[in-house]
């Protein structure tokens, strides 16, 4: 199968691979997918007090397009507010990476991972306020 140059670039040189401290109150974690389906993405974001994402890290079990989708969003997330992050759509990811139709689900998974990470940080913030 032919991959686009951008997919190959992210796959060969993935950006921001790693893990943040999940117990840090400023870190939100989103893990989506299932091993049985052949892809699992874990996305972690670190948000400062102004609600801006300072750091993003990922780990992905999946095909080259899944790895590229998650690598790309870690680049996009840095410097954005969590609301801006939440607004990222899978179609933007798919377009940027020129994903073929059979790989669109990889971009959907990346969008889901962002939403899950944002939901986690919001839950942590809400817990902090009520505490």
């Amino acid at each position, binding site marked *: 199968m032919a991959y686009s140059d951008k997919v190959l670039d992210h796959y060969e040189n993935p950006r921001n691979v790693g893990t943040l401290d999940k117990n840090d109150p400023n870190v939100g974690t989103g893990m989506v*997918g299932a*091993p*049985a389906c*052949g*892809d699992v993405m874990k996305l972690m974001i670190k948000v400062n007090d102004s609600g801006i994402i300072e750091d993003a890290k990922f780990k992905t079990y999946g095909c080259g397009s899944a790895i590229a989708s998650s690598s790309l969003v870690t680049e996009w997330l840095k410097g954005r507010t969590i609301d801006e992050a939440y607004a990222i759509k899978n179609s933007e990811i798919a377009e940027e990476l020129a994903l073929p*139709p*059979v790989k669109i689900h990889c971009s*959907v998974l990346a969008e889901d991972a962002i939403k899950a990470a944002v939901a986690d940080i919001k839950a942590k913030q809400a817990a902090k306020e009520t505490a």
Partner: protein
Amino acid sequence: MSASLEMPVSKHAEDSMHPIYLDYSATTPVDPRVAAKMIPYLTEDFGNPASRSHPYGWTAEKAVENAREEVAKLVGADPREIVWTSGATESNNLAIKGAANFYSGKGKHIITVATEHKAVIDPVRELERQGFEATFLEPEPNGLVDLEKFKAAIRPDTVLASVMLVNNEIGVIQDITAIGNICRENGVIFHVDAAQATGKVHIDLDKLPVDLMSFCAHKTYGPKGIGALYVRRKPRIRIEAQMHGGGHERGMRSGTLATHQIVGMGEAFRIAREEMDLENARIRRLSDKLLHGLETMEEVYVNGDLEHRVPHNLNISFNYVEGESLIMAVKGIAVSSGSACTSASLEPSYVLRALGRSDELAHSSIRFSIGRFTTEDDVDYTIELMKSKIDKLRELSPLWEMFKDGIDLSKVQWAAH
């Protein structure tokens, strides 16, 4: 590709158009000795073997009959028991549909195994649509058929059983002597798909309790597009032809014989007969070396029984690494993956699933198949490549991280999508 314009520094340079070939179970290159023998039958000796009235036909017929003898010799058969076909898929169709239909008066139940090649599974499914009943036996976790379960599957109306000799995905060797004896005791016709077996295991049909056996040339360094079906003469097994028109091959398979292809198959099988013992010893050394090299990594599992298997095949799961990304990572070698991820369905291999492998392990599998032209350098390169890429992909894998943290992945609630 700009890379292909440069002179390769070595065979192992990252030349993505010519990776090291480790997919001999998919097909083999035609041995140059085979190709050389075929060529005159395309140009000078082009006659139709069915032409009885001139030397062109006689020469072609002689070549076809010599090849028939060579094929028969490799498998311990009488040349008159060999019927030419277009390949193992046609042989399987002819054997299964041909015997089931001919003997359908005796019963309409067929036994086969869930890990058979699609060229056996699909004809059996087709017979089901025509009113036959079929049992698809689940193999044991090592890929082998349990003889007691096979025995228990036989019914009074069982007419045919089909079990492959060497599995194409996992390389395990079924005990066809024992299975054939059970068939004999119960009056069941026994077909064996031996497409992956010729030149790898000794076959002696003179002694084996097998009634029908399928062969092809292109897994044994012959050309694609030619195969054969063994049809036992004593006791005589009858099949209904699936191809009509001219009555070639004693009415069992009509169609002008492809002389050059047949000559190729004969020469390929002659070479296999003469060289297989030496070749297999060499391949076993390479296979052992590859396995030992790969097993220095953690969480590496061989799929299929280690003892009852051909050394040519190593099907290995690299846990916590996804198959398609793995294939992408190992561009320097040509292998196949048990994970058919190019489809949207993300179906892992049905063979590995039938062994009870988890989805993750099935998705993370690579089939390495070694052959005549594999060198020790190829194996060394493959081990180093696999180690470095597996390390890299595991560094990327959240599942590997969880495994290292001691989390039991089977207890995690996954959001299936």
